[in-house]
């Protein structure tokens, strides 16, 4: 623990916000030290080993010289090590403002939306707050429909270094937008994303995680939805040695709807963890979760999701669906779709399945002259495409497909 403090002291000169920000950063670090690293059997982390996070990571900025991925047909905002680089970023369409979080930090700790749910990645949220050095505040004005997707391209970082960023997304009343997070970083990326979708607004939030093979990724997503608000979240997880995505969603307004889907593809010793909590707090809300795992090598996939319907969440309709395909004998999948329901006027269902590729389907394809590895790639690709097809924007969908195709060529033989 003292490691993190030592890093804090050594790097505090470089912290954004200067002396004004030191007080709340100190508080956050103290909170982290109080909580300590989770014990090996801590419930929230029982399937996710945290050995790689035991040592402190250097928080000083590192130079970046790689090629920045871009998505054609989208508005790319490039963040190098969490810091917005205007020279690489595109012009914004009308109705959207993107400000660099740095500008705000000297005025106080970044504000979370009112009613934002708690973190599922504790205690690393406190670490994020203590070291936060970048990110964005994205606001979509009321009644604006933004056609072009806004892509936050995160690059930079280096092994042994950590980048702590926060992206705060707010859609005002009846706004509509697609916000994408494209991750291509190295080292530890500890990211907090909050979304605040006001009444009748519609947010498509897509996370394409293609970090380096040795990267560690901690994503802390917190969504809050107003009346008749809609959030469609899709997570495509390909990169990182260890990736934990904690998504806590609160359906706060009557008639809100949230669909979360994801696909995680693992090879080597990768570890993909999606931990979710969906809270139905208002009446007549709908939520759907659809997650698919494709796991080869010695990789491990974790899906742990809790659907909570509180006493006030009457007429809730919730589903959870998780399917995993294990491509090798040594791959491992954990699936925990959980329901916690405190009222009787609900419809909730969940399902999970873990198995291997269908032998009959493989045989069928072989019989038609398709070689074994192509057949396997087609079948696994089909599973991934079930999820990718949920992405409404064509440019983003195509980019996600390209990433998955490349992964399949490399990993499925």
């Amino acid at each position, binding site marked *: 623990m003292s490691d993190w403090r030592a890093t804090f002291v050594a790097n505090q000169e470089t912290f954004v916000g200067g002396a004004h920000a030191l007080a709340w950063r100190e508080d956050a670090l103290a909170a982290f030290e109080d909580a300590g690293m989770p014990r090996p059997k801590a*419930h929230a982390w029982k399937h996710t080993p945290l050995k790689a996070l035991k040592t402190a990571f250097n928080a000083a900025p590192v130079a970046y010289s790689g090629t920045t991925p871009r998505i054609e047909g989208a508005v790319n905002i490039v963040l190098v090590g969490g810091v917005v680089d205007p020279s690489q970023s595109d012009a914004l369409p009308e109705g959207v403002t993107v400000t660099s979080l740095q500008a705000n930090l000297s005025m106080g700790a970044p504000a979370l939306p009112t009613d934002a749910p708690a973190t599922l990645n504790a205690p690393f949220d406190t670490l994020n707050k203590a070291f936060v050095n970048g990110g964005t505040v994205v606001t979509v004005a009321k009644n604006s429909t933004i056609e072009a997707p806004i892509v936050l391209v995160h690059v930079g970082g280096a092994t042994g270094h950590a980048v702590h960023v926060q992206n705060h997304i707010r859609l005002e009343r009846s706004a509509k937008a697609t916000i994408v997070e494209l991750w291509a970083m190295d080292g530890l990326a500890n990211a907090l994303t909050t979304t605040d979708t006001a009444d009748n607004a519609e947010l498509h939030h897509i996370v394409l995680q293609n970090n380096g093979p040795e990267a560690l990724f901690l994503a802390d997503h917190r969504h809050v939805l107003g009346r008749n608000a809609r959030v469609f979240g899709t997570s495509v997880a390909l990169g990182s040695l260890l990736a934990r995505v904690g998504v806590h969603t609160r359906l706060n307004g009557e008639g809100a709807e949230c669909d979360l889907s994801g696909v995680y593809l693992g090879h080597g010793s990768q570890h993909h963890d999606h931990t979710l909590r969906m809270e139905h707090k208002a009446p007549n809300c709908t939520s759907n979760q659809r997650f698919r795992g494709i796991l080869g090598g010695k990789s491990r996939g974790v899906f742990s999701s809790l659907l909570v319907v509180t*006493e006030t969440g*009457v007429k809730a309709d919730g589903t959870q669906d998780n399917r*995993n395909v*294990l*491509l*090798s*004998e*040594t*791959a*491992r*999948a*954990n*699936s*925990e*779709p*959980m*329901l*916690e*329901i*405190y*009222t*009787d*006027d*609900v*419809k*909730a*269902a*969940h*399902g*999970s*399945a*873990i*198995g*291997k590729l269908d032998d009959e389907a493989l045989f069928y394809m072989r019989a038609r002259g398709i070689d074994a590895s192509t057949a396997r790639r087609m079948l696994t690709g089909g599973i991934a495409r079930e999820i990718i097809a949920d992405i409404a924007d064509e440019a983003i969908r195509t980019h996600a497909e390209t990433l998955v195709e490349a992964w399949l060529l490399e990993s499925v033989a």
Partner: protein
Amino acid sequence: MSQVQDLPIDQDYKYGFETDVEQDIMPPGLDEDVIRNISAKKGEPEWLTEYRLAAYAAWLEMTEPHWAHLKYTPIDYKAISYFAVPKRVVLDSLDDLDPEIKATFDKLGIPLDEQKMLAGVAVDAVFDSVSVATTFRAKLLEQGVIFMSISEAVHEYPEMVKKYLGSVIPVRDNFFAALNAAVFTDGTFVYIPPGTRCPMELSTYFRINARGTGQFERTLIIADKGSYVSYLEGCTAPMRDENQLHAACVELVALEDAVIKYSTVQNWYPGNKDGVGGIYNFVTKRGKCLGNRSKISWTQVETGSAVTWKYPSCLLIGDDSVGEFYSVAVTNNHQQADTGTKMIHLGKNTKSTIVSKGISAGKSTQSYRGLVQINPKATGARNHTQCDSLLIGDLCGAHTFPTVDVRNNDSQVEHEATTSSIGEDQLFYCRQRGLSEEDAVALIVNGFCKDVFRELPMEFAIEATKLLAVTLEGAVG
């Protein structure tokens, strides 16, 4: 002097009477001396005393688990009397049984009388801490089937008890199992010899009677190669405003090709409508499918207890072994249940089926908690889990916490679950055909539970259906 008292009984719980029999009760409290005392009173061999003391030492180091979705007033383990025995207990024949106890069991409808051949069920009755009567023993022994109280088995078949006691549930397994191993007073021992199909249903009836006691029984069933046994378990307790602890252990061992079918109708006193009193039912049940092609099937109907904490499990060690779990749990008023199962697949081509139906009404909460683990060597393993919850009333809760852990790619695991209330269209349909609302609910609930009830032996299935109706009385309308 003593008599079975016809206390004014709450209609909801007809087994709530208390029997006034002379008891030999140890003062409350637990230490090494109490354990030595229990052991001495039962004339146990040295190894068993040591076993108990080791368990007690382990228990002292352990802490009570609180991960379950349950809220209850803390248990004062020092206030419990760990030994209560009806005084006239040494029996040569059933005629010697204390008439009060016999009357109690008659009242409960337990066929203790061997004359009642029609019943066709061999019964071991456990009253507070000791087994008071075992019927049909001689007849069973003709076929080599051993059916007796575990205290007798310790003396008559010490080697067998020593070999298997604690082999499925080790002393350090969990807090309540350790406590049970330290203080268990009686229970049932069953051994089915190779190639034998047990000619009748075996049954144990548990009754907590004395005030301020806990019940800690231990059941050990061993089915040798190629044998079959069906075993039933029933439980009741008087109505009291105190919470009594029931911490039992059940160990099953199935050798090659053996089949054990274990059915429970649990009807401990659930407490009154305001949640006062009732039994804390903290039970560890586990079966080991040790031999190839062996099978263990758990069927349970849980209607009683204030708080239930129970996860009958199967360790599927032998190749091609099969584990099954069929459960109906009903909670009403302030009852709480956290129940489910664990299927640990270790052998090749092992299969397991889980069907769990939970019904919550009133202000009760209920959780299904399950683990399906497919280990690397368990290739070709298969599991299907179906768990459904039905909610009646807007103040109850139903939760589902399944865990699936698959560590090889040659297995197939599926889990499905639903949670819903009784559909208004279903109710309307029944009402339209002239059924009262209560009858309609009973009909729908019985249909919901059918998958499990058909796994029960017939007599039990009828009892279970009735119990369900009683438990849910007043839950609608």
